[in-house]
């Protein structure tokens, strides 16, 4: 089997803070591999290490067959990157941004024109090519960055949160491009995201990463299969109630397992329709009122909760990251 990315025991420390804590994984050629995790889990640090932007602390990492620490230029030649933060020059036009990029990758004039035209078509920005980037919307900038990442026909494409801050429609649009790339060029794609439905939609395999470690890594289907049965999701008044109810349910042995995330209790069961009445009985006997209840097949979200013990959404909105994002976009 041919691997496009091979990582073993990768560690990145910033002083005493361990951003990436000994992760190992392999990505096959032509595979779309997802990194799923909350902000600050170490996704971007890993991508920056693999794309030669930062030096790893220890471990081995090979991209397109080259050691990322020893053969930086060879690696850079063979990869395309779409960064999490904007990286276009907004005093240049869309065309110029692409043209300059292609120049640095050593493409001749004729070749540049041909590829730029092809990619502008693909990301549907042909009529905006001669507009300054400062006039582009967020979605247009993102699409142009994706086009730019593809100019050198990379063997491996890195997409770091490519859909962050975009509306649902544009998001879907971009994911569909990425899917079509794989089919068209047999390109390997490593995508990081904290949108679960995104990982589910696009990835062949997903690694759930939390606190710098890969918690689990498999196809979305297998990950969900691991949680065979259904999940009952009950929203309670507070965390104490959730814990009390979980205790009772565990004692009655009606569930395979339970997880609590804030005031929400996830109960994993074989068959929700037969368990739900019992569940409600226990709750009313304990005098715990339920605000809201739903049952469904486990989603990747449940998988995430199962493995990390928390909902990915808990981590959102808290960070300076989103604040910085806003400030940066304003300043442009």
């Amino acid at each position, binding site marked *: 089997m041919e691997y496009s990315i091979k990582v073993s025991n990768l560690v990145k420390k910033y002083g005493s803070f361990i951003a990436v804590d000994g992760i190992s994984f392999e990505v096959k050629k032509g595979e779309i591999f997802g990194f799923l995790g909350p902000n600050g889990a170490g996704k971007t640090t890993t991508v920056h290490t693999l794309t030669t932007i930062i030096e790893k602390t220890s471990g081995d990492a090979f991209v397109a067959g080259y050691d990322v620490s020893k053969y930086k*230029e060879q690696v850079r030649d063979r990869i395309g990157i779409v960064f999490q933060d904007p*990286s276009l020059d907004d005093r240049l036009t869309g065309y110029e941004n692409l043209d300059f990029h292609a120049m640095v990758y050593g493409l001749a004039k004729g070749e540049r024109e041909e590829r730029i035209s092809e990619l502008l078509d693909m990301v549907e920005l042909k009529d905006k090519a001669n507009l300054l980037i400062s006039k582009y919307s967020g979605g247009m900038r993102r699409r142009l960055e994706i086009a730019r990442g593809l100019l050198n026909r990379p063997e491996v494409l890195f997409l770091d949160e490519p859909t962050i801050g975009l509306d649902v429609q544009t998001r879907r649009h971009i994911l569909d491009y990425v899917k079509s790339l794989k089919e068209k060029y047999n390109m390997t794609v490593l995508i990081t995201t904290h949108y679960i439905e995104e990982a589910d939609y696009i990835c062949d395999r997903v690694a759930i990463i939390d606190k710098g470690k890969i918690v689990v890594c498999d196809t979305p289907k297998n990950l969900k299969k691991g949680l065979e049965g259904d999940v009952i999701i009950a929203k309670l008044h507070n965390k104490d109630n959730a814990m009390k109810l979980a205790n009772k349910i565990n004692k009655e042995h009606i569930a395979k397992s339970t997880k609590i995330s804030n005031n929400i209790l996830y109960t994993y069961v074989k068959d929700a329709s037969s368990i739900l009445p019992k569940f409600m009985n226990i709750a009313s006997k304990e005098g715990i009122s339920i605000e809201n209840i739903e049952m469904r097949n486990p989603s990747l979200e449940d998988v995430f909760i199962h493995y990390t013990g928390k909902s990915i959404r808990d981590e959102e909105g808290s960070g300076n990251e989103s604040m910085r994002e806003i400030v940066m976009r304003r300043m442009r």
Partner: protein
Amino acid sequence: MNKDIAAVYMLWLRAMKRFIRSPSQIIGSVAMPFLFLIFLSAGFSSVKFPGMPSNVNYIDFLVPGILGMSMLFAATTAGISLLWDRQFGFLKEVMVAPVKRISIMLGRTFGGITTAFLQSVLLVIFAIFIGFHIGSILSLLIAFGFMILIGLAFVSIGLIIASIMTDMQGFGLILNLLIFPLFFLSGAIYPINVLPNVVRYITYINPLTYGIDGMRGAFLHASIFPIWFDALVLGIVALILISIGALAFSKAKITI
């Protein structure tokens, strides 16, 4: 095309395009030295500085100083603009290209020098209108040479600062504590021999002093040092600064 040469060319071309597209910035950066030129010459033209050749008009004496100032400000700012690229992410895009960092540094340096040079040439043209005498074409060419050397030195200083600095907070501080003293302690406005000894020695370690003195040698045939000596000192300093700049840039952080 060789990737490294392409990178140098690309970064230079980018600097040119950005320059042409921001008329307000051009006006802004030419206006300040121009105002200095007008108001200083208006006030000081009747003053007789000791040590200034008697057959020299103050405006002819001042223009090389203001050209030095213009190069100093524009080149340092161009070097420091690396900070903006880091802030807005474009630096990442350039740094992950399969080229050597030295090519990126050279591209930025040439771009910075060219924009600073074009601004200063505009200034020369304005200066002619208010009574500056160029002398011969040769004088002008020699002065251009000095302007480019000043540009090299100070783009490098800007790059060194931007490579070491991690945020943009210190930018105003540097402007006030580095650029202005360099300007005032270069003999740009008055002959340095009117200064007290201690201060005069400081001007001798300021590379800008030699640039301005060299230009005065070219335009007025009245300089403290021989022109070749000015060129030699400034050239050596510029080379050293470029080397330090390359070193600092090779260790610079790519992300914020």
